[in-house]
Each structure stands twice: as C-alpha cells, then as structure tokens.
C-alpha cells in the first residue's frame, strides 16, 4: 500500500515538474500577446496566473498544487473556460464505460478460449485460434476500427457512426436509453475488445499449458476426477494467477487504446478531450487528464494485488 501511495505521489510530482521543465514558461505562450496561444480573456489570464502562482517560490507552488489536488481543484480549462475537474467529470465516465466493457469482454472471451485451446492443445481448434490470436493482436486499433466502421456502420448501417449517444434524444423509457447507449458503444467496444483479446487469449493459453503439465494435474487425473473439474477447478484456477497481473498492466494499454478509438468514433470520452486539449494547448486539462490516468492505472494495479492475494494462498502469507 505504501508503495502505491509513493507511486501516486511520484506521478503527481512529475505532473507538477514536467511543464516547469519544458523550455520557457508553460504560460509564456498563453500570456504573450504575440503568440498564437495568447489568451484574450483578461479574467482567464488573471485566474491562470493566480492558479499557477509562478512568481511564488517553487516549494510554495508545489504545496499549493498538492493542496489543490486534495480539494479537487485542478485549475481552469483555458479552452472551455470551465474548472478542469468539471471537464474531466463530463468525459471520464464515457471512457470508463468503454474501457471496462472492453476489458471485461476481452477477459471473459480470452479466458474461455485460452483455456479450451490449451485443454485441446494441438487440435485444429487450438491451431486456428492461436493463428487468429497472433494475427488480430498485431493489427493496429485504428485499422480494425476503420474496417468495422466501414462494414457495420457505413455499409450495413447497423450501428451509429459516431458519438456516445444520439444527440438531443429524449428517451421514452430506461430501456430505450440503455439501447441507445449500447448501440453507440458497440463498435468502439468491439474494436477495443479485439485489440485486447489476443494477448489475453495467448496468455491464458500459455499459462494453462504450463499448469496442465504440473504434477498436481497428473495427480488430479489419477484421483479419477472428471475432465471438467480438472480443467476448471484445478488448471484454470491456477492459470488465472498470472492473468490478474496482466490485466492490471493491460489497463494502461486499454486506456491508450481507448484514446485512439474515441478519436476514431468521435466518442465523447477522455481520448477526445485529450486530443482536443493538446491541439489547443490546454495545459491544465492535459495535466488533469494525466492525474486521472495515473490514478486509474495505479488503482488497477492495487486491485490486482488485492485480487492475487485473495486467489493465491502463497502470496497471502508473504
């Protein structure tokens, strides 16, 4: 736990230092009337200067920054002229919905197919799945996304082309709402699932093959246990231990993947926000997004540690 707090602190500190380490002053472009990024709104200019307090000594700036974080004050978006926290609050749920859906789907499919392929190792099904896994795993997400968009969105017209929901829609019932959200989510989530799936499949298959060669599996067979029990109760249960950590490490990857996909599908999540903020040099938002991503990845790892501890008695003790 201490490790995670330290990691969080390190990430936040880096977030504080990076803009200040860039050549020149992060606000120079914003405050210089000759630059393209000049902020015309004098009120915003003043609030920026006040927030960053660049005249104050660095230590005071740093403490001020940390205090702001704890009170949820992440500064003011230059582009949207709103508090950064509010901007993130608008976009984060969409990204979480997309990322977690894809991670969940990819995990379920990956675990199931990986376990089956390992159990029937060398069979045509195993060979086909493994080959497919390797191929799909190496296609870039924007390519997959584009293909899916062209086939299911543009050509077949089964799913909407962009957005997170139908604009200005009024829903007659909760069901309609869920349906609309789901339809918009489907293609982006499918794209991300495909991007995440193959590594999960290959990992579970490999780890399951390793477990199946263990002595305790042989003993389980010698005990006369039926195949299903050996496969799930003993083999898969052990094969999932490395998977949990992989999942946590993959959370960061999933998030980055989501950024591309959101841009492609014009999905209203963090990805699009970061894209637009970078284009507009909206530093406060970029910094805020960085904080959120750090917290997300660190939490995922913390969760994985906790889960592993629940799942593996050998680690519970250590």
């Amino acid at each position, binding site marked *: 736990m201490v490790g995670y707090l330290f990691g969080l602190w390190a990430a936040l500190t880096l977030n504080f230092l990076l803009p200040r380490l860039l050549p020149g002053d992060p606000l120079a472009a914003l405050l210089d009337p000759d630059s393209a990024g000049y902020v015309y709104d004098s009120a915003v200019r003043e609030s920026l200067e006040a927030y960053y307090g660049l005249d104050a000594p660095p230590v005071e700036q740093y403490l001020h920054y940390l205090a702001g974080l704890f009170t949820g004050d992440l500064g003011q978006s230059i582009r949207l002229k709103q508090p950064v926290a509010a901007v993130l609050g608008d976009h984060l749920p969409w990204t979480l919905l997309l990322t977690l859906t894809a991670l969940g789907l990819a995990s379920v499919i990956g675990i199931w197919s990986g376990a089956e392929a390992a159990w029937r190792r060398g069979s045509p099904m195993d060979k086909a799945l493994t080959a497919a896994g390797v191929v799909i795993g190496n296609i870039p997400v924007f390519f997959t996304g584009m293909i899916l968009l062209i086939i299911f969105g543009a050509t077949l017209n089964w799913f909407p082309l962009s957005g997170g929901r139908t604009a200005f829609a009024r829903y007659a019932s909760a069901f309609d709402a869920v349906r609309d959200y789901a339809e918009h989510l489907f293609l982006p989530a499918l794209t991300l699932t495909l991007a995440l799936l193959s590594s999960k499949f290959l990992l579970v298959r490999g780890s399951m093959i390793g477990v199946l060669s263990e002595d*305790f599996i042989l003993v389980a067979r*010698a005990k006369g246990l039926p195949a299903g029990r050996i496969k799930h109760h003993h083999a898969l249960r052990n094969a999932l231990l490395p998977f949990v950590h992989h999942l946590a490490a993959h959370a960061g990857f999933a998030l980055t993947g989501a950024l591309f996909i959101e841009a492609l599908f014009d999905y209203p999540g963090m990805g699009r926000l970061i894209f637009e903020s970078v284009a507009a040099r909206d530093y406060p938002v970029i910094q805020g997004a960085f904080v959120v991503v750090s917290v997300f990845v660190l939490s995922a790892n913390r969760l994985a540690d906790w889960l592993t501890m629940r799942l593996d008695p050998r680690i519970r003790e250590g």
Partner: protein
Amino acid sequence: MSAPLLSVQNLRVSFASPDGNVRALDGVALELARGGALAVVGETGSGKTTLARALLGLHPAECVAGSIRLDGDELNRLDEPGWQRVRWRRIALAAQNAGTAFDPVYRAGEQIVEPLRLHLGLSETEAWQRARTLAEQTGLTERHLRAYPHQLSGGEKQRLMLAMALSCQPDLLVLDEPTSGQDMRSRAQMIALLRRLRAQSGLALLLISHDLAAAAALTEQTAVLYAGKVVEAGATRDLLTTPRHPYTWGLLNAYPNMTTTRDLSSIRGQMPDPARPPDGCRFHPRCNQAVDDCRRFEPPLERRGGRLVACHLGGVQTLLQADNLHKTFVTNGHAGPDSLIEAVRGVSLAVLAGEVVGVVGETGSGKTTLGRLLAGLLTPDAGAIYFEGQDIQAVNGAEGKNLRRRIQAIPQDPFESVDPLFTVRQIVRQPLDIQRIQGDRDALVRDALAAVGLPAEGGFLQRRPHELSGGQLQRVVIARALVLEPRLLVADEPVSMLDPSEGARLMNLLKRIQNERGMGMLLISHDLALVRKVADRILVMRGGAIIEQGLSSVVISRPQHDYTRALLLAAPSFNWFPDGSQGADESPDINNTGDQ
C-alpha cells in the same frame, strides 16, 4: 494358488517423438498377488514411472498396448470414464515428488476430501471426518489438513500424499519413488509407516523405486527394469543377495549403503536412447560379459532356478574359477619333509565378469603364489583353473596363446618386470609382437599409454626405465597389460612401491579402467584399507589357505575370523596419537606405505 490381483502382460508404451518412436516400455509382464508387494527397480530412464502411469491409464490410449488385468478385469480397453471409476477406488497412486503433487491454491485437506466426495459420495462433514482419520493413520493432525501445500514440509506432504492415496481404500497402491529426495530419517519413517499401513489394511503395493533398500524393506517380489524391459524378476531377498542378471549385479554394486566401505562404482556407459535401442540385448553395450549372441538376439525372459532372467548366458558369468589349488615349493634343492613349503593349500575361488576380488593377507601367506598360479605363470601341483569355462592347463597351442592374452598380470615391482634396455615403446609393444596381433601395433601402444594417462607421443616413447619415476613405470607396466585387452587382470600389490598419494592416484586409475572395460580383477594386497576401497569381494589368506571370504561390506563390518579382525585393527589409521589405543607403529609389519 489364487488368481493374481494385478496381471500385466506384454505391456508396451510408446511415444512419438521427433527422434522417432520412443518405446518406454517394451513387453513388460508382471504379476502381483492380492495383498502382496512387488518392487520395480531400475535406473532413471528405465521406464519405471511410465509403468506407474500406465497402471492408472494416464497415458494417451493410443500409446499403450498389451494387457493390464485387475481382478480379472481388462483395464487397457477402458475409455476415460471407465478409467475414472478405476482410479483411486481400485488403484491409487502415491506420485513421485509429493512436493508438487498438491494444487497450491487449495488446502491439503480439501484435496483429500475431493475424491472421497466424488467417488464414495460422502457428505462434506463425513469426508472431512474420514480425512482426519487418514491423517491420524499417517501421523498427521488437523493442522496439516488445514494448511496450504506451501506451508508443509516435504515429509508432511509425502504423508499427506499417502493419506490421499489411501482415502478410497484401493486394492492396489502404486508408490512412485516414495522415498526419493528425502533425508535418511524421514525416509526410514516413511518405510516404517508403509510397513505398518500394509499390515493394517492388507492392500497390495507396487513400489517403483531406485532405492533398493526400500525394495528390500517393503516387498517380497522384485522386478528389475532396464530400458523398458524386465531383465530379472524373483523374490526380493534372493534377487538382492544373489543377483543373476549383469544389470542387477551392477545396480547393486552401484548402490551406496552403510555397510559398504567401497567407493561408489557406476555401471559403465549410459542408458540407451529409448528411440534407438541397441540390437540384441539392450544391456549388451554396458555388459561386462557380452558375447556375439547378445549383440544379435534379444534374450527372452526365462525361468532359471526359481527366477526369471533375460540373459543369453543365464546371468552373471564366472570369469575365473579355481578348484582346490595346491602348490608346494622345495627349498634347499632337495625334497625332504622339512624343506617343503606349502605356499598354496587347497584354495578355491571365483571371479565374476567385471568383478574386483581382493586377496588380502600378510607377507608369506601365499597370496603372490596364488596370483601367479591364476595368471598362468606357475603350474599348480593339484587342482584346476577354469577361465571362461576352459581348463587353462588343458588348452595349448593357438588356443592357449589366446587364453594367455585374456589374462594379464601386473607385477609388484615394475623395475623387475621390464628389460632395462627397452624403451617405453618396446616395453608396451612386446606383447603385441609376441601375440602377432594384426593391425597398427604402434597405434595400439599409443592408445594403451593414453588410457593410463601417459604421454603417447614423441620423446616419452623413447625413454628407458631408469629415466622414469616409479609411478610412471608402473603405469607403463599397466599399459603393457592393457594393450592386449585382457578380460582379467591379476594385480599383485600394484601400488605398494609408490608413495601414498601416487598410489591412490594409480589405484583410482586402475579401478576406472577396470570399470570402463568391464574387466575382472584380482587385486592382491596386504593393505586391507586399500582393498576395501575397490574390491567387491574380499578373500582373506593365511598360511596358504583362504580362511574367510565374502562381500567387502560384510568382511569389513562383520569379520568372522580373529585373523581378519587383527588385520582390520592393524590397518593404518590416525589413531596413533597419545589418546589412541593402537597405532601404526605397533604393527609395523602390516603397514600402508611399505618401504621395501
């Protein structure tokens, strides 16, 4: 006699591999009576574990052929669900490596309960109750059942494995190396536990092990497995005391136990590649007595004197046999009763193929005369000597010459046994010239010199005896003996002229060459400390007669004759310090270094 519980006939297990078809088991037949115990012993790679798994149907069905009958039911035709009904309920397996035999994420108790619930349909409470009883029987407690595998020691896991294997009260328990990887104390406890359990439950045991002592302690019957074939089978006691097959004999010799003071000697060579077993008898490349038939035909497993042996020669051959030898020397040039010295009086002995027999006695006991008789350098007054079944006095001419070639002597004093004017090359080459050996004789000379660790090139070949050290010359003499590829070496005090360190080096060399070439060796020495390090058997000589003989381990640990005990006490030790009761200087006549 009732029908056996387990009857295995012509069991063949083969696996496809990149190198070709690996025949792990090739026609194995075994029988085990209800409540009986059978050990299957052999080196790593002999197919033991394959056999254990085959008995539980754990190999893919297409790999297994032949018949496995349990109580008359043919198991090898069963499908997977059929096997699931046999496993654990009728045949249980205590797997090798109990350390990794438990699923790490479940408590040990849960894993014992699992088959109880599945096979016997017990409720959770009943199953745990039964698990506690089983734990008690194997000397464990509730705490061990509640523990995760990683919290248990190797010995505890071994016991839990046993408790788990016994849970469904099987008819047959297959124990795969139950004692391997354990320290001696837990090993002894495991053996005691198994004996007790067997006495209590009357279950049949099939012990798969390379641990011969465990086989002796636990079983009545033993089968020796080599490269997927049974080479010898019979009553454990007989088999381990008088092995017939050369492999069994080698296995026993290689086995370290507390009663052996001899250095370990391995069976020469390696287990054959199971994908390409040699033609003929699979053991012939490592066998000390292989003949042409062994290279060409596979020996059948035949009943020979109450035991099954697969050997064309019927088992370990006697290389040299001497019956009732007598030799009397006449001193003073005339034959009067007071001038006769009976050097050898009624000595009978045998040397098996590949065996090292030590003849021990003090100076004047007649051991050198005996050596010369056996090497054919003297003719006995009475008695007969047979070498590979041939009476050495009856053969002559070409046959006799050939026979001489196969017995070679290494004399005590190398300086006396070489012509001082000969070069090293001439010394070693001379036997080849005398025997008119065909081929490149100089190459054979170089090979022989290389075998004894001497330079085989250039100037060394041209040296003469006075230019060599005692150790070098003794090596040259050994090379001279080896150059004819003898089957038996008669070595009379081969290292007594050397300092202890050079002597030890030379003795190691001699033992190694003997082991690699599978020669028999008769080692004559006054030095019991030396002999017991290399000899398989020891003969103690006194006054021209053999007064005690037996396995080295037995002669050393339980000497029967007072004279042997005296020799043992006189053997050099470091007990000559003030607190020691005996010392080397109290018995200078039987000393180690021998400053003659």
